[in-house]
């Protein structure tokens, strides 16, 4: 019998890509008219800040710092979230100048102001797939991305 190979699929297409050397990066948009930066990438070519149509796709370096974080102790309602509980999420300010909401790998424990880097890790398993997500973790963390 043929063994079904497990597949890694992203929680949503188009949030990040992986470079040839294996380094992941987030994908966003930047407005050439006003300089505003968006994550995720905006599919509609319309800047929410200046209302012009000059958006271009950009890639982020995947590094930034923590602005705020919280550890969620209970399962979120609605059945949308299938990852582990408790989990930590917060606001990360990327070096390119955009604030994003992200889950955080809280080992070692993170604090406000700390430098973090992006990793791609498993969010949950579904049938034969590993559903992957980006997260941020301490710069000196030993967590290795899988994607």
């Amino acid at each position, binding site marked *: 019998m043929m063994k079904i190979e497990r597949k890694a699929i992203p*929680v949503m297409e188009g949030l990040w890509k992986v470079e040839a050397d294996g380094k992941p990066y987030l994908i966003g948009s930047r407005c050439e008219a*006003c*300089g505003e930066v968006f994550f995720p990438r905006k599919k509609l070519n319309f800047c929410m800040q200046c209302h012009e149509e000059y958006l271009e796709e950009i890639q982020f370096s995947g590094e930034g710092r923590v602005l705020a974080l919280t550890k*969620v102790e209970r399962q979120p309602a609605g059945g949308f979230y299938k990852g582990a509980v408790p989990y930590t*999420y*917060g*606001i990360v300010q990327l070096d390119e*100048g955009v*604030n994003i909401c992200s*889950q955080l790998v809280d080992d070692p424990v993170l604090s406000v102001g700390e430098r973090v880097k992006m990793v791609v890790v498993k969010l949950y398993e579904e049938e034969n797939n590993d559903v992957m997500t980006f997260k941020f973790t301490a710069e000196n963390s030993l967590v290795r991305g899988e994607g």
Partner: protein
Amino acid sequence: MSQNAKWKDVYVQGASTTKWGFFPNDSTSSMGSAAIVDALKDAQIKWGKVEAVFAGSVYQGTASGHRVVGEIGFTGIPIVNVESACSSGATAFRLAYDSIRLGQYETVLAIGFEKMPRGPIPSTAFPSWQLAMGFNVQPANYALETMEYMHQYGATVEDFARVSVKNRRNGSLNPNARFQKAVSTEEVLQSAMIASPLRLLNCCPLADGAVAMVLTSKPESNRAIRVASSVLVSGVYGEESYQSGITASVHHYPSKGIVEKSAREAFESAGYGPEDIDIVQAYDSMGPGELWDIEKLGFCARGTAPELLREGVFDLTGSLPVNTDGGLLSRGHPLGATALAQIHEIVSQLRGEAGQRQVANPKLGLAHAMGAGPNSAVTILQR
């Protein structure tokens, strides 16, 4: 937003609320229709005088206001169902107010009702990828704002516990509140952790119930309360709104946030300032939120509300009583009805009918509700 000489003055002539709690045997139509009948009695008018109904709710589905009004009897008038998350009741109130102010109707009804799902709220105010990542947890989103507030102003978990203590004390004097038992600071600080640093007793309980209000340009009773202004602001570009999954713009942070903008418009429209307000219903879905809400509404400088709370300024006997009915933390949070319940408390206080929790001689009151989206609704009422 200046006043137009042709606009009519608008008054709340009748108001009624059910008790707030967990009522598995009651439907929204039974609770909502009971509130309407009581509000009509309070206003001393017949149902046939009502020319339109504006109905706020969040989780009641298609034609929810029609189901409520159907219990009273259809009379051919328009029924407008309104959803703007936790500010739905204030939005219904604003539409009712505008319809009279602009001369379309003489007497209308604003109602809010909710029957809450059990447990935390399954929000749909987030894109699907954020739901999959677990970002729709409201205590957690308020925890992020709380972390920033602590970091910026040095506020502590003891400060946040004091909000719960004050509001639960006020709620113990409110026979309609879901929780009518006072709590101590220690009880708050030892309650279960929900999303650090927020604990169970920092978070409001959900509730079922309904509230109804008769608005008119021709008040026929000296118990009528004038609506000085009613404002809704739905989103300001660049500001963070964690309860809607929106993060701040680094390059284009607005000079005025959504709460500040709605408060400024409400004060300008009313012709009064923060210094004229005697009582406040602030938005305390999570205890810490009450503190920064009081500051953003313009009642004190940023970062100073914790100290004023410690000094008793926001107590029933203080110079600016806040959440006199116990707020969301005691009354409970029936999403679509919450903002109208806040307005109801201001009406009761201004009429001098708030019983054991009555504040001495208030003349002007302000109610503020936030709603995911984001929305910020401010209502100012005058005796």
